[in-house]
């Protein structure tokens, strides 16, 4: 089709080149072109945070980006976190603290927290709550999520 554009993007360390419809958003590209279905879609309006991924290290809502805008970027998704069968420490903290129920929001929180942890700072619970306000969870009431992130930040603070 005429309104297709070429993109070259590094996804979880691997370089991918593809042609995408100009109006396809990045979340759809990740999910339905690349099969990375761990990134979810809950509103396509930038409100729910289900689609949060890291683009050049920053947590962004991929439903608000066109796939074409990923050209030349490095993208990290939830699929990059575990090594083999081994959950990474953040994932393990979510598991230990019962930070997920249905799990639909989990990738959004994990990627938000991954970016947070790279700052290397400890945060108090109230600060964590503010930092994750862009991702909604309708199941847990947030308590387990906040505990898991607090624990992980404590472990990774420099």
């Amino acid at each position, binding site marked *: 089709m005429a309104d297709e554009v070429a993109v070259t993007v590094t996804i979880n360390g691997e370089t991918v080149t593809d042609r995408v*419809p100009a*109006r396809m958003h990045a979340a759809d590209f990740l*999910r*339905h072109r690349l099969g*990375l*279905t*761990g*990134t*979810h*879609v*809950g*509103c*396509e*309006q930038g*409100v*729910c945070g*289900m689609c949060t991924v890291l683009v050049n290290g920053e947590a962004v809502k991929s439903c608000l980006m066109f796939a074409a805008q990923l050209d030349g970027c490095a993208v990290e*998704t*939830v*699929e990059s*976190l*575990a090594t083999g069968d081994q*959950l990474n420490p953040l*994932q393990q903290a*979510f*598991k230990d603290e*019962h930070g*997920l*129920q*249905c*799990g*639909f*929001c*989990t*990738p959004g929180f*994990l990627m938000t927290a991954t970016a947070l942890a790279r700052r290397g700072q400890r945060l108090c619970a*109230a600060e*964590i*709550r*503010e930092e*994750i*306000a*862009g991702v*909604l*969870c*309708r*199941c*847990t*009431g*947030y*308590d*387990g*999520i*906040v505990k898991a992130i607090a624990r992980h930040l404590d472990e990774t603070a420099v």
Partner: protein
Amino acid sequence: MTETLERRPTVGEERGGQERTSLIGTSAARKEDDRLLRGDGRFTDDVDPLHVLEMAVGRSPYPHARIVSIDVSAALEFEGVRQILVGADVRRMSAPLTVLRPVPGAPKLPYYALAQDVVRYEGEPVVSVVATSRAIAEDALELIDIEYEPIPHVSDVIDAQDPEAPQIHPDLVEGNLMVVNPEGTGDPEARIRSADVVVSGRFRINRVTGLPMETRAIVAEWRPGARELTVHSSTQVPHLVRKQLAEVLGLAESDIRAVASDLGGAYGLKLGIYPEDVLACLHAMALRRPVKWVEDRMEFFRATTHAREATHDYRIAARSDGRIVAITNTYATDMGGWNSGFGSAQLSSVVFTGPYKVSDGYVERRVVLTNKTPIGAYRGYGQPEVNFACERLIDQLARKLGLDPLDVRAANMLRPEDLPWRNPAGAVYDSGDYERCLRMAAEAIGYDAHRAAGRGPRADGRYVGIGLSSFVERTGYASARFLANRGSQYGAHESVTLRANRSGGIDLYTGVSTMGQSSETAFAQIVADVFGCDYDAVKVHAGDTAASPLNTGAFASRTLIAASGALKEASEKLRDKTLRLAAYCLEAPAEDVEIAGAVVRRRDTGASVTLAEVFSRAITGQGIPPEEEPGLESTSHFEPTDAAYSFGTAAALVSVDPETGDFDVERFVMVHDCGVAVNPKIVEGQVRGALVQGLGAALGEELRYDAETGQLVNGTMMDYFAPAAPDVPPIELLHTEVPSPVTTFGVRGVGEVGTIPPAAAIANGICDALADFGVELHTMPLTPEVVWRALQEASR
């Protein structure tokens, strides 16, 4: 107070034969977590069959209108469009949607997947398009020319009952009143006439949505030669979806396989089929191509059932010492424009007298049609609504009599020795210690100190109040015989199949889909416990009708109540045969061998054989006793004899600015009893999660309709405010554990309870803080504006 706190549970404690070994009662790691943490969940939109087509649905922009004409010709020409259906097609190709839980005594409404001649709510499906992509299908919708002739509409449940109101189903329902369901015992009117005091109020409950983060979705695939319709669906009840689709599509149940893998939340909203499910199947069958539909969030707000909206006229009559002598509650519950799969909430009636000992009571449920999105089930199913009315009015009663609201509650609560107790609606509360929860909540929130501190503003100028809300919650439900009287289209049982495999593991097959309630974990805990194997050896396969015994499904806080019995029986059958086969192989009597983790061993010599070896022998039939059949598998169905009633009390500490009406929930305490907790961490998660939904509905969530246009005003994620992490007040949870005598293992349901008490507790806290101003609140949600208005009203 201390004496009450230390009172031990007396009922249900001594039940013989309670199996309670190592795993039940521990916070075992969740089976569901690893895949979900790694982005390996399988949600419906993750299923992308080859050559899949996508569907988009055109919806009515009007709340009430006649469809004059539909012209699809331009859209049909659009490149990529494969098929378009309109109302007449659907009528030819399918039957109206069937209802799983009819409103008792109400007429059937012919709800087709696409509107016939009249649309009855904004968002009602009118036309469906299938194309090579969703974008193309949506573009094609724009090219469809639909002419509507708007007719007068009605949005409000009280207005709708006016004889002059527009009639929504004039041929079938008179006065927009679907039915009146009365229930009661004794002579409440006589008691009211002779009572020392009567308090009454009209309480308005807001229309809300459960708002799962995953919207609804379906992928339908038809292989005509095989006569096999495979439906991947985000549903709580795959076996019931199969039944309903068979009825509506005119297929045999054997032609349909419904698969629900992971669900991104459901909360009652994903019970049974919706119009779009039928449409996707019709298109898939006509086109012989897989068809996918994923609801977008704008659609969700109009197309997925709403919840709660009701108006309760509640009355309490009492003696001057605070003893309640009668309760009546007449309420109008909104149904929207059609009867959804679970109709409107029915449990307001069942628990209308709360935890109180009242014999003279009357409740009347009036189910009313309006031109709005149909109402359906949502966590709580009527119980939060009636709790708000009842518990608010208890406080008003106390204030009127100059008594303490806690004392009024305590004086009227059923005592452990009163139970089991049949309330005026016929509900039989099984067991519990209601007052103990009340006292614990009061102690945790600092009730006595607050009362002793006297009235008046705090140093920061704010007034502080404490509000209580006590409740009894029905979890699960009584037997199939009870349901049959009400026309329910499902049973009361759960079923499970266990199958040994040659790796030494046990495969567990269940029709209960996975939506965050952690049933995979709890089920595996019970099987590992009763069978005696390792928890890791149990693998749960959930939600596929082709690979699970026919069950009922995950709703009504019922799953574990019914399933625990089936799990126990099936595990025992499997264990007993395993022991016989192992004994044969170890040359010992079956009584002398035991399962210990991955092996079966002789108690005397310690000689052992692995489960993998025993299971392999069973599966091949080689090396088993001659009188035994080969194979190692068991299926059990279990129906509980009755519902189990959870209970508890919530307490909220609230500070209010009397100038602006601004208020803060500074602390929130919940004391709750769900009987034996199979997994305490999961129980806590369920209670917390539901509490935050209850807090959302109490403090701001509301689907608002413009009375003039009949349109939904705030139907987007940007305008509907579900709580985000910073919005949640500090919550403290306490539990008691009175085993239920009516369930296996003494469990009660736990999934819904948190939605019940928040609104009443907070409203009572605000009214307590503002008692000197004479403020009483009757409307949800509670917002600073509502409080400010009430202050203005009171000062007049």
